[in-house]
């Protein structure tokens, strides 16, 4: 039976068809899906911050793009995905509150998106779809049967990328 697996903030899950992975209410956070269309194996990571430079040893690695992505990649490969076939889709990275004097921390969504793309490129994984920026929240869901990445919003409807 197809199950819906929930991915929390600063968390990741991997799985295979016919499961779906979902993460609710992303603001400046980014939901990154990895998917191998042939083995129908994939994962979803919900990061909060671009890099773990200031992290403490006890910190949860799934909170950061630079430490979370390698972890998820490793688990997806263990499930039988082929790295050369893996493709990534990303969504999120909004700035929820508009301040005229927005500080760096307010723009963390943009920095998240940039960092994720850079890291994926370094890992040799293609980003084939992206829905980032704006000032609204998103709920993201990857269907591991089809690889369709569904992005739901409150005022702007739903789209698949």
């Amino acid at each position: 039976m197809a199950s819906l697996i929930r991915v929390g903030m600063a968390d990741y899950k991997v799985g295979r068809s016919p499961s779906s992975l979902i993460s609710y209410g992303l603001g400046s956070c980014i939901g990154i899906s990895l998917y191998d269309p042939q083995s129908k194996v994939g994962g979803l990571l919900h990061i909060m911050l671009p890099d773990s430079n200031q992290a403490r040893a006890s910190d949860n690695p799934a909170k950061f793009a630079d430490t979370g992505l390698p972890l998820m990649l490793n688990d997806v490969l263990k499930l039988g995905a082929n790295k050369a076939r893996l493709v990534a889709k990303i969504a999120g990275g909004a700035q929820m509150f508009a301040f005229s004097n927005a500080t760096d921390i307010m723009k963390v969504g943009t920095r998240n998106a940039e960092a994720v793309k850079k890291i994926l490129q370094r890992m040799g994984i293609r980003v084939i779809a992206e829905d980032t920026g704006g000032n609204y929240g998103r709920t993201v869901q990857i269907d591991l049967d089809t690889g369709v990445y569904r992005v739901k919003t409150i005022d702007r409807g739903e789209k698949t990328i």
Partner: protein
Amino acid sequence: MTDELSLTPIQLDALREIGNVGAGNSATALSQIINKRIDMNVPKVALVPIETVPDLVGGPDAIVVGVFLRVYGRAPSNILFLLPQHSAFYLVDTLMGREHGTTKRLDPMDESALKEIGNILSGAYLNAFFNFTHIAMLPSIPALAMDMAGAILNVVLVQLGQMGDQALVIETEFLAEDDGINGHFFLVPDPGSLSTIIQAVGVE
């Protein structure tokens, strides 16, 4: 820096009491504006894993209105006043003298009114805070968003997330006498601010 994970029961009590007086002030202010009795609960002061904070307000995909203020001064913090969507609409109808159930979406005037409510509540709260701690705290102009709770909470959580996996949340719930409005007021000190506040109340 005080390690946030090692607050003593007395320190937590002190923070709770500050939260209590602050929230009391805010509740009085809100009550005067809408001319209804406002009940509040005893503030929760808790260290919570940041990924569970959205659950406090109905889950990460619940639709809420958030008024956000950045607090400047010796103990920089964030204030977030969260209202479930129906509460926000109810409050706006009350403020604008419209029949309840009129508001279906927020126009700029409604948003402005809600921002002002956030402003007044924060001012009342921070005044009480000052009386206890003698730390002057100045709120920024308010910003407003209506969206998923998780997305809105991201703003404060990201800042905390840079430093650790737990958030100190001083939270009070407001309830109007006719149950039409319930709101959550969060004061979330920046990681470094906590020790400043603890020192100021003299319960190191």
